[in-house]
């Protein structure tokens, strides 16, 4: 085990992930501009299920937005929060399973 090499690839990988996070607002804007629809939504439209969708739990940051923040900033905050939380949870889970 070489901790120096681990730190090196970790740093590069995290920089790459940070680049993805910074790009998130631009992609969010662009997909909105073309009228975002996924195949599941198309299937729901085709079978009359579209109105059946409900939100039991809208979440703390519903649909990757932050109450009171404009969409690009809300998307950026959501990307930072979600990515950091996922990193922490997966690392924590990994550490627990090492025991």
């Amino acid at each position, binding site marked *: 085990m070489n901790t120096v090499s681990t730190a090196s690839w970790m740093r590069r990988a995290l920089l790459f992930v940070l680049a993805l996070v910074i790009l*998130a607002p631009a992609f969010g804007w662009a997909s909105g501009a073309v009228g975002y629809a996924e195949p*599941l939504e198309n299937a729901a439209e085709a079978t*009359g299920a579209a109105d059946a969708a*409900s939100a039991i739990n809208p979440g703390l940051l519903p649909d990757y937005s932050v109450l009171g923040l404009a969409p690009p900033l809300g998307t950026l905050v959501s990307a930072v929060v979600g990515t950091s939380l996922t990193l922490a949870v997966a690392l924590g889970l990994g550490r627990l*399973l090492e025991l």
Partner: protein
Amino acid sequence: MHIPDGFLDLWVAGAFWLGSGVIIGIAVRRAKGELGNERTPLLGVVAAGIFAAQMLNWPIPGGTSAHFVGGAFAGILLGPYLGVLAMTAVVTIQALVFGDGGIVALGGNLFAMAVVDVFVGYGLFRASRRFHETGAAFVAGWGAITVSALVVGLGVGLSSAFAYEVGVTVPIMVVGHALLGLIEGAITAAVYGYVADARPDLVLGRFSDDALAPEVGL
């Protein structure tokens, strides 16, 4: 791909919870002892990277958009059991914190994206890598997301909200995601190619003993 609440009948949602619960439980047991100093950070970084990549909706003129799902990528890079754990973290956080995918439907989303996408992707990669490794990563990304879409199409198609129209939901899901899956395959292949060149020892899914790579430094 994320199923909201209200789309699945309770028995379908329950079956998905059962299936994903069993497989995730097995993954937790198999992952114990497989995690080491390099693998635990890798698990965290891959999960975080997939969360961030899923936020990038690629706009496609004509009114659709696709985002990278990443289950096949996780399976290839981490091996199937750690791959399941990484995707479980991503999909659960998306549902709980961002309301992306339902709570009752979480079992279905876990089954599609954290189980089927990972195992099918890993299986396709292992079956085809002898022909062309980067090509195998493409096939894995494309094929796995298409099969995952089939599973979601079956789940909603067997539910009353979709009027039990399996014959409508399955073709829409499979054809739609087979086309969008070309992007999934391309991203899987591109990132796999980069990692396999730069740090082949980190690609745990390449090794024949399922998930274990030798611990290697530089």
